[in-house]
C-alpha cells in the first residue's frame, strides 16, 4: 500500500515537474520563468523526500534542506536582478 502511494506520489510529482518545465519554456515573462524554476526547486525537494522514503534512508535529508535554502537564494537574487540589475550593491 505504501508502495502504491509512493508510486502515485512519484507520478504526480513528475507530472508537476513537466508542467513547471512547460511554464519555464513558455514564459512569457521573465518572472514566469523564475517562478517556474523556483517551483522546480521545491518539487525537486519533494522528490528528494520521496526518494528518502522509497530507499528507506535519511541520507538525502540535508540535500532537501539545502535545496530549499539555495532555491530561495537564487529566486531572491534573480528577482533582484530584474528590479535593480545590481544584485550586490
Amino acid at each position, binding site marked *: 500500500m505504501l508502495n502504491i502511494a509512493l508510486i502515485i506520489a512519484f507520478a504526480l510529482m*513528475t507530472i508537476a515537474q513537466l508542467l513547471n518545465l512547460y511554464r519555464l519554456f513558455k514564459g512569457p515573462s521573465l518572472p514566469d*520563468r523564475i517562478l517556474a524554476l523556483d517551483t522546480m526547486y521545491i518539487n525537486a525537494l519533494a*522528490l528528494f523526500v520521496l526518494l528518502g522514503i522509497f530507499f528507506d534512508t535519511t541520507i*538525502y535529508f540535508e540535500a532537501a534542506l539545502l535545496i530549499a*535554502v539555495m532555491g530561495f537564494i537564487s529566486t531572491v537574487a534573480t528577482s533582484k536582478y530584474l*528590479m*535593480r*540589475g*545590481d544584485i*550586490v550593491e
Partner: protein
Amino acid sequence: MNLALIPLLPLLTAFIPSLFRNRNLNAITAAAIAGTSMLLLLSQAPAVFNGQIPLSSWSWIPAIDLNLSFRVSGFGFMFAFLILGIGLLIVLYARYYIAEQDPMGRFYTYLLLFMGSMLGIVLSENLILLMMFWELTSISSFLLIGFWNYRSDAREGARMALVITGGGGLAMIAGFILLGNIVGSFELTTILAAKETVHAHHLYPLTLILILLGAFTKSAQFPFQFWLPHAMAAPTPVSAYLHSATMVKAGVFLLALLFPVLSGSALWFFIVTPIGLITLMFAAYMAMFKDDLKGLLAYSTVSHLGLITLLLGLGSPLAAFTAVFHILNHATFKAGLFMLAGIIDHETGTRDMKRLSGLWQYMPITGTLTMLGCAAMAGVPLFNGFLSKEMFLAETLGPNLFGSLSWIVPLGATLAAIFAVAYSIRMVHDVFFKEPAANLPKKPHEPPHGMRLPAEILMALCVLVGLFPMTMAAPMVNVAAGSILGAATPDYHIAIWHGLNMALALSVIALIGGSVFYLQRLRLFDSHLWCSRYCDGKMTFEAIVSGLVHGGRKTTRLMENGSLQRYIALLIGAVVVLGASPFIGSDAPFIGPLALSGVDPVTLIMGLVLIFSTVATAIHHRNRIVAIIMLGTVGLIVSLAFIRFSAPDLALTQISVEVVTIILLMMALHLLPRTTPAESSRGRRWRDIILSVAAGGGCTALMMGVLTRPYDTIAGYFLENSKPGGGGTNVVNVILVDFRGFDTLGEITVLVIAGLAIYALLHNFELKAPQTDALGHPWTEDRFPMILAQITRPLMPLALLFAVYIFLRGHNEPGGGFIAGLIVASVLILQYIANGIVWTRPRLNVDNHIIMAWGLVIAVLTGVGSWIVGYPFLTSSFTYLQWPLVGKFEVASAIAFDLGVFLAVVGSVMLVLVKLGSINSVDAQRVSTSVQKEKKDKEGAH
C-alpha cells in the same frame, strides 16, 4: 698546452683592447696578444719543419666526440703563420686607418676574436672543434663587416655574409657528423688515413656534397660568390684581412685539408673542378668592370679562390702543391693591394676609378707599391704571382676527366688570366696616370709612413719570392704540401724559367691579350652593361629572403587569424580525431559484455527534462538572462541525478555551487550586453553544430563503451579502510580529507588563487552599469526591500547552525567543510543582497584575503603536524574521547583540515562576490577601503 693557447689566447683576451680609451694602447695590446700567439706558433716551427705534427688533446664532451685537441701540420702552420703575420700588419695599418669617431678598441676586439677563430680552424685536430671555430669566424666576421653599422650597405653585407657562410656551416655540420660516423672518429689523424673506408661508404656522396657546401659558401665559390664583394662595405683593414689570408681562405683550407680523404673520386672532380673554373672566369670578368678599387680587388679575390679550387679539383699532387703555393702568394699581394686601395681611399676620399686619375705626382711611392702588387696579381714574371700562375697553367694542360672536352680547362684558365692582366693594368693606369684628377674630396698626398709600412713589407715579399722562390718560399710550401700529400708530395723545383713550354706561351698570351683588352675596354664596358644588372647575386639573395619573410607572414596570418573560435574549434576537432582514430579499423566490439540496467519512468522523464533544458540553454543563448535560468534548471536536474545515483555529497555540492555560479553570472551580466547579436554566418553555424555533435556523440559512445565493460577498482580498499583507517563512515569525505587529501589541498589552493587573480583583475577597474532594465524601465528605487532585510537577518544564525551541522557530520555523513563553507558564503551573500555592501561590509570587519589565506595555512599546518609524530605529510590521526555525560565522540585531525577547507571557501567566494559587486558602486569601494584603513590604523596603534 701552448698549442691550445695559440688560438685560445686571442679568443680569451680579445676583450682587453676595448678596455682602453687610448688608441695607441688599443693597438699595442692587440699587437702584443697577436705577437704572443705568433711566438707560440714559431716555437712549434722546428718540429714542424722536421715533418712532425705536434698534437695536444683533452677530452671534453665524449657524447658528441668533442675533444679539445689541436695539431700543427705544416699546412696548418703555414696558414697560422699567414693569419698571425698579416694580422700583425693589419693591426699596425688599422691604427692609422680607423677614424677618430670609430670605437677602435672594439675593432681590435673583433679582430682578435676573428683571428683566434681562424687559428682554431687551421689548428684543430678534432672535426667538431674545427666546426665550432668555423662558425665562430662567421659570427666575428659578421661583427667586423658590420663595423660601420650606420651604413646600410655594411649592415646588409654583414647579414648576407653571416647567412651564407653560417648557413653553409650548418650543411657542413651534417657533413662532418656523417664523415665522423663513417670513419668512427672525429680526430683528423684518423680521418685523413681513412680514404678507402670513406669512398667505399654509401653516404660518401652526401657527405662530400654537404662538406663542399660549407667550403664553397665560405670561399665565395659560384654561385655563392656574391656575398664577398658586398662585404667590401667593411673598413679596408677588415677587407685586407678577411679577403686575403683568412676568412675566404678557410674554405679552400678545408678543401686542401680533407683533400687526402675526400678527393680522388670522379664526383670530387666533377663538382670541384667546374665550380672552380666557372668562379675563376666569371669573377675575373666581373673584376674588369668594377669602378670601385675594392670591388675590383674583391672580384679578383673570388677569381683567385676559384683558381685554387680548380687546382684542388684537378686532384693531381702537383696541382695540390701549386694550390698551396698560390694560397701563399695570393695572400701576400692581395693583402698589400687592399691596404694600398685603403690608403688611396683614405688620402683622396674616394675609391672610384672614374674619379681617380693621375695620382702619380701626388703619391709616387704608393703608386710604385701598387704597380708591384698589380704585377704580382697579373702574373708578370719576376713576381711571386707569376710562379704559381704559370704552374697552374701547366696543370690545366694536364689530362683530366673531361675527356674530349679537356681543352675547356686551359682555355678558361687563359681567358681568366687575360682578364686578370686587364684589370691589373686598369688598377694602375686609371688611378695613377692620365691627366691629374680635379675635384677630389681631399687634396691627395702620401700617407703617414706607419700606414704604408705593412704594404711595403708585403710588396717586398712579393718581389723577393718572385726572385728567389727556392730560398724564400719553397721550404714552407714543401712542408705544407707535404703535410697534405704525405708520401705523394712531388719533389718540385720552383723556378722562374722552365724553358719554352706551353705554360709560358699561355702566360705570354695572357699578358698580351690583357693589354689588348685594356685598350679596348670602352667597347667592353658597353657590352658589359647587361651584366652589371644581372650578375650580382645580391638581388636574388634578397628576393629569396624577403620572399621567405612574406611567405612566412602569409602562412602565419592564414593559420593564426587571431580568432579564438577557430582555435577552440581546432582543439575540439583535434581531440575528436585523436579519440576516434583507434576505432578506425578496430574489429573489437564497441559495446562491452555487461547488460544495460533498466530505466524507470521518473528517471526517464527527468532525463528528458535535462535534455530539454540543456538544448533550451543553447537555443536561448542570445537572450542571456533566459539562458542563465535554463542553465540553472540544468544544474538542478544534475544534482537530482547525483541523488538518484547514490552521490548525496555531489548533490549537495552541485546545488550550492550552481546557485553561487548563477549569482555570479547575473552579476556579470548586469555589466555586459544583455543579448548576443546574431553574427555567426550560416556556414559557421553548421560547422559548429557538426563539430559539437561529433564531440557529444563521441563522448556518448566512449561512455557507453566504458559503462558496458567490467573493471576492477581500488575502491574496495577505501571502503574497507575508511572507518578503521580514516575514522569516518562517509567514504567520499574520508577520501577527500584523508586518502586523497592532497587533491583537496590543491583544490582549495585553486580557490584561493582564483580569489587572488580575480581581485587583481578587478582592482582599479570600473564598468558603467546601464540605467534602465531590458524593457527600458528605470530601476526600482527601493534598493533593499524591507521584507527581505527583516527575514534574512534572523535567517543568518539559523544558517550558521545548519553550516556547523553540515560541517561536523561531514566525516560520517554527507556534508563537510566545503559545503558548509558554501552555505555560509551564500547566506552572507544573501545579507549583501538584502542590505547592501555599505551596511554589510563593515559588519564583517576582516579582509576576505586573510580568511581564505588562514584556511590554507590551517590545512597545510594540519598536514605538517604529522611530521612531528614521524609520519608523512597529511597523515591523519583520530581518536575517540570518552567524556562524562556527553559520551564517546571522535576527534580527528581531518576535522582541522576540513576547517581549513571551510575558511578557504568562505574567504574566496566572499572575496570574489563582494569585489565583483563593488566595481560599479563608488560608495561600496569606499567602504571596503575604509575597512582596510581601519585595520591598518589598528595595526598602527599597537
